[in-house]
Every structure is written in structure tokens, then in C-alpha cells.
């Protein structure tokens, strides 16, 4: 006998009946037609007839097999460069500067994923190494016009930092930018939350980013403690007319530096674009400027404030020809008495959407070295899918 002192016999029967209930239910359901009204039996007959008819039908002709697959959009971007510098022993060089592999797709109804893997040459060892330039997910369906990004991404500092270098109209990066963020830019691992403000006439986007400090940017380092790098960016985009737009961005960044103290950066960007809607592939003008103000605490009670900016003017002469002039001014963030000034001129020939050749000449003056000259040639070529660039 089962030891069921706490359940009496009546209860046991009840529980058994309860457990068996589904089986009764099924039998009852199966019996519905016989017990049911005439209309239901007519319906059942119809359904049975239909099913019979379906079974008798010829099988559907074999569909041609779709060539669709779930592979992500893939692309490879090659960046071949040759360079000249007027100082030092080695004046000329040529190299495959970067090979970027992009893999992009929607993951599921909630998120999409973007990966950019890069194979670049280490300038010191000359050997090629692979790295994840970016790899992040972006949400597609958060409420309240929010969008979350998680992974490794180029951070929202103005205009140059979020742009992949191959898409810029010049080959080198502005001095002020490199001094603070390095050749790879502020490209870090963490979270990014952006909010589209409900303004109707002006596009306004507010972005908050929290990252761990893994980036190679000189301004910030990874904290040995629990400190993170924080960034806030407000993007304002004004439509001046059908053909002209203005973008004004404000950025604040704060994070640990290599003195185990804090660096704060304030940055602003202003971009005017003129692109006639009707003949937008023939002529256009872009005037873009950014400034960076850095406040670097490097010792108790001591901090260095430095300033830098660039401004460029790009003119599209014809469908395939672009000319860009740029001015750079930068105080070194570690010693503001060292200042750099540079002028550069670039010309680009855009063969198609998938290849372009550019040349650039640059002259730099700084307060401790004599003037020097640089020149570059760059050939960008893309195979496979190539996503759109930011406007």
C-alpha cells in the first residue's frame, strides 16, 4: 500500500480524475460532431470534402530553388597607399595600408549586426595582423525612439571619428584629432544609447556611450580600477533648403588617463553641405570643421588645457572629381606650448562607387621642428556589398 496518510481515498479518486481530464476532453471533442447540431456536421462534411479534394489535387509544380541564403552582406575594401616624407632616412614607401572585411546582416526581428574586420600592417614590425575594427549589435525595435548599440564601435565624436578612414576625402588625419585619439580614433568597447528627440523641424539625436577604455587613443587609458570612459554627443541637423544642410554637434568625453587621473574633452563640429538635389552627382560643396578642447589632469593640482581644430573645404568639380583643402591647428595635449600648423590639398578621382584614387600634399610647421612636407597616393577598391556612408 502506498503511504498516503495525508490524502484520503475520496481525494485520491478526485486527483486521478483531474489528471485524466485531458483524455476525457479529447474524447469529448472527438465526439462533438455526433452530438452537435446539424450545422456543425454540415461544416465538418465540407471540411472533410475539402481535405479530400486537396488530397486528390495534383502536387504543386516544383518551385525553382531560390538562390537566397542567410549569409550576411559581405564586402572587402582594399586600401593601397604610397607615401613621401621630406625628413628622415626613408622618404618613400608603399604598402597595402588596410584590408577591411565587412559582414553585415539583420540578426532577428530585434537586432542587426555589423562586423568590420581589419588586416593592417604594423608600422614597426612590418607584419600584418588581424583586428576587429568594429563589431556591434544595434537594436531595431526599442520603444521611445531609443536605439542601443553594444560591442566595439567608433564612438560618436563629431564627424571624423565615426567615419571609416577610406571614406574621408583626405588620406591623413587632422593633427588635432590624431593627438587626442590616435590613428585608429576613439574606437572602444561598451554600450551606446541614442535617443531621437521628438522635434519635428530639426533632426536632433542625443547619444550616451560608456566604454571600458580599451581604445588606443592617447587621451584615455583603461583604468586599473573600475573607472569607465563616458561620452555624450548631441547632433543637430538643419535643413536650410532642398540643396543645403547644416549640422552642429557637441560632444563631451570624460575618462581615466595614463596618469590615473581624469581627462575631459569638449568638442564641437560644424558641417555645411550644398548638394543640388537635381544634379547631385555633378557638383557639391562641403565645409566641415571640428574643434577639440582637452583638459588633462596629469598630477595633483596640475592640469594641461590644450586646443586643436581642423577645417576643410571640399568642392566637387565634376561627376568624378573632388578637390579638398584643409587647415590644421593643434596644441600638444601633453605640452600646450608645442603647436602644429598644417595645410593640405587633396584631389580625388572617383571612378565608380567602388573605386577611387586620391593624392594629397601636406606641409607642417611646428614650434620645435623645421617645416616638413608629406605626400600620399591612395587607391581604394571595394568588392562585394558596400553599405551607405553617413551623410
Amino acid at each position: 500500500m502506498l503511504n498516503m496518510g495525508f490524502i484520503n481515498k475520496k481525494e485520491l479518486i478526485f486527483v486521478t480524475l483531474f489528471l485524466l481530464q485531458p483524455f476525457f476532453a479529447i474524447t469529448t471533442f472527438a465526439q462533438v460532431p455526433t452530438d452537435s447540431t446539424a450545422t456543425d456536421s454540415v461544416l465538418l462534411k465540407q471540411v472533410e470534402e475539402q481535405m479530400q479534394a486537396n488530397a486528390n489535387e495534383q502536387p504543386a509544380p516544383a518551385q525553382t530553388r531560390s538562390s537566397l541564403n542567410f549569409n550576411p552582406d559581405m564586402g572587402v575594401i582594399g586600401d593601397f597607399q604610397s607615401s613621401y616624407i621630406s625628413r628622415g632616412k626613408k622618404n618613400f614607401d608603399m604598402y597595402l595600408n588596410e584590408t577591411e572585411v565587412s559582414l553585415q546582416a539583420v540578426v532577428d526581428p530585434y537586432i542587426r549586426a555589423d562586423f568590420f574586420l581589419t588586416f593592417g600592417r604594423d608600422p614597426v614590425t612590418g607584419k600584418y595582423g588581424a583586428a576587429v575594427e568594429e563589431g556591434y549589435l544595434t537594436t531595431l525595435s526599442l520603444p521611445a525612439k531609443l536605439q542601443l548599440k553594444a560591442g566595439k564601435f567608433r564612438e560618436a565624436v563629431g564627424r571624423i571619428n565615426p567615419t571609416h578612414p577610406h571614406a574621408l576625402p583626405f588620406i591623413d588625419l587632422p593633427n588635432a584629432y590624431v593627438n587626442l585619439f590616435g590613428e585608429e580614433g576613439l574606437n572602444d568597447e561598451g554600450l551606446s544609447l541614442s535617443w531621437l528627440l521628438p522635434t519635428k523641424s530639426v533632426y536632433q539625436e542625443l547619444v550616451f556611450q560608456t566604454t571600458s577604455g580599451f581604445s588606443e587613443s592617447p587621451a584615455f587609458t583603461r583604468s586599473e580600477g573600475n573607472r569607465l570612459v563616458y561620452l555624450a554627443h548631441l547632433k543637430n541637423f538643419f535643413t536650410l533648403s532642398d540643396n543645403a544642410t547644416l549640422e552642429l554637434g557637441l560632444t563631451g568625453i570624460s575618462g581615466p588617463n595614463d596618469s590615473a587621473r581624469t581627462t575631459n574633452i569638449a568638442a564641437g563640429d560644424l558641417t555645411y553641405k550644398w548638394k543640388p538635389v537635381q544634379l547631385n552627382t555633378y557638383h557639391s560643396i562641403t565645409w566641415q570643421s571640428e574643434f577639440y578642447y582637452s583638459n588633462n589632469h596629469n598630477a595633483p593640482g596640475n592640469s594641461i588645457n590644450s586646443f586643436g581644430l581642423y577645417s576643410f573645404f571640399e568642392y566637387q568639380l565634376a561627376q568624378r572629381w573632388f578637390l579638398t583643402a584643409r587647415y590644421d591647428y593643434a596644441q600638444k595635449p601633453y605640452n600646450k606650448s608645442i603647436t602644429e600648423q598644417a595645410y593640405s590639398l587633396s584631389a580625388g578621382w572617383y571612378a565608380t562607387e567602388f573605386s577611387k584614387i586620391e593624392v594629397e600634399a601636406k606641409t607642417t610647421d611646428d614650434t620645435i621642428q623645421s617645416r616638413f612636407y608629406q605626400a600620399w597616393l591612395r587607391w581604394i577598391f571595394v568588392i562585394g556589398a558596400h553599405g551607405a556612408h553617413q551623410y
Partner: protein
Amino acid sequence: MEPINIKRLKNNFTDKRNKMKKRSALFIFLLLYMFAIANAKTIRVVTTTTDMKSITELIGGDKVSVSSIATGYQNPHFVDPKPSYIINLSNADMFVTVGLDLETGWSPQLLASSRNSKIQKGSEGYVDASIGIGLLQVPTSANRGEGDIHIFGNPHYWLDPLNGKVIARNIANGLERIDPSNKSTYENNLQVFFANIDTKMREWQAEMVPFKGSKLIAYHNEWVYFETRFGLKIVDFMEPKPGIPPTPSQLVKVIGEVKSNNIKVIISSPYFATSSADVVAKQTGIKVLTLATSVGAFPSIKNYFDLFDYDIKQLTSALK
């Protein structure tokens, strides 16, 4: 008799005035509220091009408010993805795209930035107007050495008025998915649209009959559906390959073809420079005709029917 209490009277008066104020405020509020409800009920549609906008307006009637990202005089391949377009997309109930990778350089990026799950690919509010179109020029191999080819086929299908019916069906399906309560309105409008296309089609074809088989030069490979429907024959293009600007050797080739075939017209679009076509015109006396590729290309083209009225009028008078 009790003396008149002026203060009381005054209070009474103010009370009444306040009450009236309150009532009128309430009335205005109700009116605004009703207006808001009426407004909220319209389906907000964003289309990539003006042709899709026009057809959506014809099917949706007063139930929809439609805006188009591209203008009618703009090259639909190369629209700049300005962030300002995201504002409309973020509030849209439905998105209509021409599809077949026509807008691949700009619309996916705008959609992803819209934060609007209602209009993402695969959602109820996403309408690909190309579903069910009998496609022309579907390539057998995907090789960019052939220029800007479209792997799914030529995407300029709206330039055949009969394809307008397929577009309209797709748009009506979309509207009925997200607004089933007005299904009968959309179905009625769809039938009216079909009937109008059929009527106009007879007129257009009658006008084009005398010019059947006429040979033309086109700037870009975007007329194949129009050409096929109206029995024209495009011999060559100003572009040596789709997307590649005209080269001197291509112009020499075209000049030869114009002379040997006695071709009368080069057709171009508002967004292409006519300088190269003018060179051919100078050499051969050929007419350069800028036709409309979309609604709104010229101020007189206000809807999808005007588009064909305009192009056929221009073509028939040039070919005479």
C-alpha cells in the same frame, strides 16, 4: 427689500463668465481632441519615390498622408541619406519601396536609423512594390565589370503603366494589412485605379501606334519597361555601361549609330547633364528630349497618369 449686493452680483457675473470660459475651453478642447483623433486615424506613409507616393495617394485617398523621400527630378539611385528623412520615417505607419536594389545606396541605412519597428523589412508596414512584377533584364551573372547592374533585374519598372497596377495591388495589400477597417475603401479605389489605367492605356497606345518600332538613343538604361510596352527600340545608351559617364569613344559610336539608323531622338532624364547629348545633337541634328522618369519631374506632372501623358506627348511630337 433687500439691498442689492453689488459684490454678490459681480461675483455671480464673474462666476457665469468663468463658467462660459470653461465651457468654451472645453468645447475647443473637444474640437481639438476630435481633430486629433481624426488626424491620428490617417495612415502615415513614407515612400522612397514620388511615383510610389502618387499611387499610394490614389489608393489611400483621404485615409492616408503620404510623403516621398526622393523628389521627382532626382536620380533615385543616388539620394543622399540626410538625417532629416529619419524624422518622417520614425513616425511612419507604412513604408513603400520600389525595391530590386534601386534604393540600396540609401534606404536601408535610413530604415535602420528610423527606430521604427513597424516599417522594417518583414514587418506589416513594409511594402516592396516590386512583388509580382514581370522583370526584364535579369542578369545571368553578377559582375560589376558590366557597370551598375541590378542583380534582381532592371528596377525602373514603374515606367510601364500596366506595372502601375501591380504596384497599386501591393500598396493596397499593405494598407489593408495595417488598416483592415478601411479595406473596402482601398479595394474600391484600387478598382477605380485599374479602370483608369485601362482607359488611359488605350489612349496612350493609340497615340504611340504610328511610332511603333521607332529607334531611340537613351542616356541611361532606365527605359526598358516603357520601351517594351510602347514598342520602341532603344539602340544604344550615352553611358558606355550603366553608371559610367559618357566617354568620347562612346559618343563616336553613338554618332555612327544615329547616322546609320536615322535616329531622331535621344531621351534623357532631368538629373543627367545634357552636355554629351548636345555634342551628338551638334554632329547629327538629333533632338535631345528630357523626359520625366517620375511624378514631379516637371511642375505639370502631378500624378502617375500625368507622367505618361507628359512623356507620350513629348515623344510623339518629337518623333513626328
